[in-house]
């Protein structure tokens, strides 16, 4: 049976993992490769690395990180941040990434999805969407890390991304992200039920129940989280064992 995926997400800047990461045995380590290995051993199903560097030098370092991760781990991983054109995608895939995640770049230039799908295959293209539920109850998509509101509605944009050839949707609710109160399950379910490509729920996990809800109520195919894993608040092996006890298919 197809397993629901658990995906830790790491922010990388200038070749180092940022945000405090507090594993018992890796207290000071900042090398993303160490975390990739550790999460892989813990049973993470995939990994996501986001390049949050602003500088050109930082971008070059990130490519090096990608190739070292590809050498070290044998599970799929996605990279995002700073990918604006086909050449950027090529560079990441050549370095060994399995998928690339794009957000603002595809909202500005939706045809980029068609181009990536045609050149590398849909499975490579993860359409990341930051959205917020507005006062009138509609979900608006945002650009630039949530700073600029667009005319796009979440559900319409996700559908368009699918039709253009995206292989997965990574949906972050800006109001849920970082609050640890759970995922927006109603919107997730509507999104997932309206699409024929997998949906990754991102941002909002605080407890193991939140993951179960994202799968059962939100119909998500995968769930992504950062700090609850990095700070050891939720341990992946325990989370997955518990999810299986709840009758949710996971890879153990």
């Amino acid at each position, binding site marked *: *049976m*197809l*397993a629901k*995926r658990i995906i830790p997400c790491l922010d990388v800047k200038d070749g180092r993992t940022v945000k405090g990461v507090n594993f018992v045995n890796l207290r000071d380590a900042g090398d993303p490769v160490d975390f990739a290995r550790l999460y*892989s051993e813990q049973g993470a*199903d995939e990994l996501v690395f986001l390049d949050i560097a602003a500088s050109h030098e930082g971008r070059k370092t990130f490519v090096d990180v990608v190739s070292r991760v*590809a*050498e070290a781990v*044998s*599970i*799929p991983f996605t990279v995002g941040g700073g990918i604006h054109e086909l050449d950027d995608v090529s560079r990441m*895939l*050549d370095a*060994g990434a*399995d998928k690339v995640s794009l957000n603002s770049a595809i909202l500005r230039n939706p045809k980029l999805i068609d181009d990536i799908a045609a050149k*590398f*295959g*849909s*499975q*490579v293209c993860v359409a990341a969407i930051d959205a917020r539920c507005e006062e009138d109850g509609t979900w608006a998509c945002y650009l630039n890390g949530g700073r600029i509101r667009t005319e796009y509605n979440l559900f319409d944009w996700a559908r368009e991304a699918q039709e253009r050839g995206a*292989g*997965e949707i990574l949906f972050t609710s800006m109001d849920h992200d970082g609050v640890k109160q759970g995922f927006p399950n109603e919107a997730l379910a509507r999104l*997932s*039920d309206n*699409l*024929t*490509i*997998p949906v990754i729920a991102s941002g909002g996990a605080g407890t193991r129940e939140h993951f179960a809800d994202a799968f059962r109520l939100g119909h998500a*195919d*995968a769930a992504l989280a950062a700090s609850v894993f990095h700070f050891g608040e939720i341990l992946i092996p325990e989370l997955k064992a518990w999810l299986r006890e709840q009758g949710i298919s996971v*890879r*153990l």
Partner: protein
Amino acid sequence: MKVAVIKYNAGNICSVVNALRRVGVEPCVTDEPAVIRAADRVIFPGQGSAAPTMAYLRESGLDAVIASLTQPVLGICIGQQLLCGHSDEGMVDCLGIFPGTVVQKFTAPAGVNLKVPHMGWNSVEQLSSPLFDGLNEGDFVYFVHSYYVPASPLSIATTEYGGVRFSSAMRRGNFYATQFHPEKSGDVGERIIRNFIYLCHD
């Protein structure tokens, strides 16, 4: 041990090379017929779609090279599909190493919202090959595909998705193939690659 990885117009050969290095093998990525024929093991990897990859294999003559191989060969993902008789993806005849097999597209059963591609970790059952020594029924491996080969007597592992039981691995003679990506399947996948490399071919 000489391991050749066939280079053609299919994507993501890099992860196969990394996986081989992790089990201590430095592979040769090549489209040279002589190098491929001389190898102890041949891996036919890839992501891509059937029609353009088959067209490329025919134009380059690699189709005949692959069909003539007598050492253990491992097709991965599109590699498995290209070893079949025919693919509905682009309605193209394939290499025919697995005769009579037809690659079909996943279709949703009535009333089911089936996600296609079949992407993620799924379990393998009915394991019946030394390729899977050390594995357990129900172990998980990583898949990304929209087309599948139905279960048949050539299946050496099967998997269920969308109400269909398909061939997650096949074998005929020296030709082995997996629909999943062992190079992306963690420890289980690494074991399969090791088994293939060190397989005592009968």
